[in-house]
């Protein structure tokens, strides 16, 4: 028989200390969030359960579950929560904690790499440069997609906060 999971109060405390995680313990488990969640209609993701597990400090259950990444940040749950729990912000805190522990999908790592390389989450290629020209726009826009010095500044900031190492999985 598997041994019962041990609650870990330190984890819940760590969540509450982060900006956006303060309201974690206000949740009284009514389930309005789960009932409102479009992702929950299509997956096994249950918002109420995720919040409960975070309250109890079931760290591995929370941080290692793919469900943590099923939220589209649509805010429907947060708008309807009768306790003012900032659910999306808590999910963001939990995701940050997971990434910090190296728990991140290859696809998401790639988005981070694109951001570092382009100053944008998607690159600009010749097909769309041609489309821009056809519409009377400059081939490359005035932002980091077309301005090398700006891209260097952008990368400097990301490196200053350690984003490159985080994405590299170091």
């Amino acid at each position: 028989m598997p041994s019962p999971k041990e609650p870990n109060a330190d984890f819940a405390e760590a969540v509450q200390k982060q900006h956006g995680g303060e309201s974690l313990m206000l949740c009284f488990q009514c389930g309005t969030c789960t009932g409102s969640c479009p992702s929950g209609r299509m997956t096994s993701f249950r918002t109420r359960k995720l919040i409960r597990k975070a309250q109890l400090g079931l760290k591995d259950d929370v941080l290692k579950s793919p469900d943590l990444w099923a939220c589209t940040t649509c805010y429907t749950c947060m708008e309807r929560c009768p306790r003012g729990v900032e659910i999306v912000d808590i999910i963001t805190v939990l995701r940050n904690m997971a990434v910090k522990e190296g728990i991140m999908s290859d696809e998401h790592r790639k988005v981070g790499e694109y951001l570092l390389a382009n100053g944008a989450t998607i690159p600009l290629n010749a097909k769309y440069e041609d489309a821009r020209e056809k519409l009377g726009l400059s081939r490359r826009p005035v932002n980091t997609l077309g301005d090398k010095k700006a891209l260097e500044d952008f990368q400097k900031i990301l490196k200053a906060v350690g984003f490159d190492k985080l994405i590299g999985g170091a």
Partner: protein
Amino acid sequence: MAKKYALFLGCVAPARYPGIESSTRAICKELDMEIVELEGAGCCPAPGVIKSFESDAWLAIAARNLALAQNKGADILTICNGCYGSLYDAAHVLHNDPEKLRAVNKILREVGLEYNGDVKVHHFAELFYKDIGLEHIKSHIKKPLDMKVAVHYGCHFLKPSNIKHLDDPERPKILDELVEVTGAKSIDYKDKMMCCGAGGGVRSGNPSLANKFTEEKLKNIKAAGAQYIVDVCPFCHLQFDRGQKDIKGFDIPVIHLAQLYGLALGVPKEKLGLDLQEVPASF
């Protein structure tokens, strides 16, 4: 209307749907709005995905964009719910938390910038509704539209409503009114306020889940008899348009509000880019 607005392009519009960028430029001209370029701006960065990875990185990059606008003496004009969500949210944090502002400025100094905390962030639909006004737009309509459209608000335009205070997040009216001023009819449909499915890193991390959202929306939109989808976010736009490469049998073209206004204000069709999309729209 003397206020200057720095056009914040973001990623998806300039790099995948340039028709949204060119339409925006054209309609701002038609409506006598002064737009300045925000040279060197970067990713907003994406609120659902990049903020999910590292909130401090997200805030520092957003602050850089705000500082660039501040140095131009302009407020920010976004054409994307994601950019609006990120920059509005970041401005809200920096304008209310001196400690965060101090920490961010320490990083910005490495690239010769400092943010003082007074730039306003606008979504173009919000600005059109509240500052430009429906009457002003109406007086510029040259080709009234006769079509039935499904309005898609997206998530980060109105929400979280406790910091944005734009409209009722459950039953809003802003976009419907902005659309109907052109003569088009905004039809009601089941689960109108549902997300497109792309946000929060779901499109990149779990595309089949994102498409399930989209398919449900497309079914509801088709059942209500809409001919087009009208949105205010290039990322929702991409999800609906490219999503239909995988989700067959709908063929519903997607029109960004700036493109819809382009049609109604008489902007040449070659500037709108509607023919360049996966599900092209011809008028």
